[in-house]
């Protein structure tokens, strides 16, 4: 029994590290976009399209990292489109997000059809757990480099928001468009760039899905991770470092079903698959009413109102 518990916990640790990476990238992208005062609900579309593009480019070029880069490029395309449309007057950014979600998914399914069968080169992991001599632990500690890229990025963003001119401009645009204008900053341009850059990161998150874990391309690859990551940003209160912890928590929740299955508990597998969604909803309910979240929200953002 103890043994089974340890197995589950190790599997969940490994799962948290594996599953959290796409959450991390999407949440960091969304944080950047929301800090500038705009919402992009459509990052699910970036995630799916990024996954497809990464897999296709990796297959055709034989280089997985080229795939990652291409996924980022496809994310910029969708993000820039979103950013451009949202700056038109009388256009609702929530609705545009829904549209981009279906447009990105549609494009991915359309062009991804021929890539469901073939096997593309995948990203290699760094074995960090070989010293433990425990095969289960060693397997759990196979960590993809993108995981560390995500953490480094979060630290960088945390620092940059506070200490750089660019960080200040993004925060100011998000908190008060009027004062940004008074400073001579183009609000539309800042938000456009922040949305495009956010789209880039979400695309990278998609590349992780298809090139590392689960590590193949099919139409059911992402089921709402992009959306949950957007919800996670509110929970992390627009703080890049907290995004990492929130992503790990979500990763662990996502790994619950497969971990239990690994010790033979398959009863209720589908129910445990719903765990991340239920967790997100509960977190949203808790953080929606919180005064702390109300204090940290960028002033121009309408998502929590």
């Amino acid at each position: 029994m103890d043994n089974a518990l340890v197995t589950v916990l190790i599997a969940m640790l490994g799962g948290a590290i594996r599953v959290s990476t796409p959450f991390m990238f999407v949440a960091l992208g969304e944080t950047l976009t929301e800090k500038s005062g705009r919402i992009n609900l459509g990052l699910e579309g970036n995630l799916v399209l990024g996954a497809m593009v990464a897999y296709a480019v990796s297959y055709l070029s034989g280089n997985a990292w080229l795939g990652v880069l291409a996924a980022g490029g496809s994310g910029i395309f969708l993000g820039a489109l979103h950013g451009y449309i949202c700056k038109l007057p009388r256009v609702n950014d929530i609705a545009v997000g829904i549209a981009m979600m279906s447009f990105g998914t549609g494009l991915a399914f359309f062009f991804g059809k021929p890539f469901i069968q073939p096997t593309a080169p995948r990203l290699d992991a760094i074995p960090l757990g070989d010293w433990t001599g425990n095969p289960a632990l060693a397997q759990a500690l196979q960590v993809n480099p993108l995981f560390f890229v995500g953490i480094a990025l979060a630290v960088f963003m945390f620092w940059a928001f506070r200490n750089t001119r660019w960080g200040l401009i993004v925060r100011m645009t998000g908190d008060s468009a009027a004062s940004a204008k008074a400073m001579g900053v183009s609000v539309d341009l800042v938000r456009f760039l922040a949305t495009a850059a956010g789209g880039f990161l979400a695309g990278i998150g998609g590349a992780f899905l298809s090139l590392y874990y689960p590590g193949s391309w099919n139409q059911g690859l992402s089921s709402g991770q992009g959306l949950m990551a957007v919800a996670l940003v509110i929970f992390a209160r627009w703080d890049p470092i907290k995004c990492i912890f929130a992503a790990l928590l979500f990763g662990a929740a996502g790994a619950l079903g497969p971990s239990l299955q690994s010790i033979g508990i398959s009863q209720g597998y589908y129910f445990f698959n719903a765990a991340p969604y239920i967790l997100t909803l509960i977190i949203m309910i808790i953080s929606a009413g919180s005064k702390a979240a109300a204090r940290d929200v960028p002033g121009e953002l309408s998502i929590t109102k």
Partner: protein
Amino acid sequence: MTAETADTAAIPAKAGPSLGLLRFAEAVSIPIGALVVSALLFALFLVAIGKDPLQFYQLIWTGGFGSSFSIQNSLQRAAPLILTGLAFAIPARIGLTMIGGEGALVLGGFSAAAIAIPLVSNAVPPPLTLLVMALTAVLTGGLWVGFTGWLKYARGVNETIASLLMSYIAIAIMNFFVEGALRDPASANKPSTMPIGDAYRIGSIPGTDVHWGFAAGVVLALLLWVLMSRTTFGFAARMTGGNLRAARAQGLPVGWLMVVCCAIAGAAAGLAGFFEVAAIHGQANASLVAGYGFTGILVAFLARQNPLAVIPVAILFGALAAAGGVIQRRMGMPDATILVLQGMMFVVLLVSETFYGRLKLFQPKATGQRA
């Protein structure tokens, strides 16, 4: 943008009868213009990937409206789209962006199929069974989306994200039962609930092959149009959508209005699920997750959240869906082609929102009076 719709409807025609007509012309022309532009863009897309756009649109026409068979096929596929379109349009009128139609449809259909199991095995007469199934689906859907509306009102939870999460949870609940306790052992490859059997199918509108869901959708759209534009409830809802604070200041029961609008939405989507089970599949399985809820969002946007306009727009998208299979076979294109077209339409349609009130053609001649 939902606020605008309410504005438009709430502004009395001060500048003479022509203003109402201009508004109507604007509300019809801009979406049609958006459709034409997206069709042209998609034609470019087809040319870019080496397909013939003329053949594509011709196939859509023949596949959607070309014969009496294809027209009936289109109407049949329009049935769930009318209902899911209403499921987005009604909360939109009160200012909520609820995209949980898919979940309410799935759960409504599943609950109808589940409650049918004991009724069918005890040989309860089909009409009574179908009635109980429909009521269960409506109630389940209504509670499901109504709960999301309540979360928005009581806790301020963002309803767009919450409603989509609820859809994923709904699908997980159905999978949980369909793969487990309620699985029909005979459904080997595609886990399903016990089939209700042919005697319990709801059948078609006499003289056609179109199932009753289409008629139900049309009737419900008419009823909801009356409710939203001809009753005090509808007025209060639209006022809340237009200006929440003003509605509160007027003492309107804002929370109650929100929850009721969401419950209506869920009930409509749940009903769509009932018809999918009772008329098409005969059991609940993964086929219920067909994306009708998401296409319904696009339908409602194109209809400018007007319940009456939902009917023709749903028929148009029903035709697109009906033609999808023909396009797949004849042009060798993947089934996601229609998804790309819909996504493009959606994006262009939202861009077109920016033209409301800015095109000279639809503005009243300057008389010094501005609405």
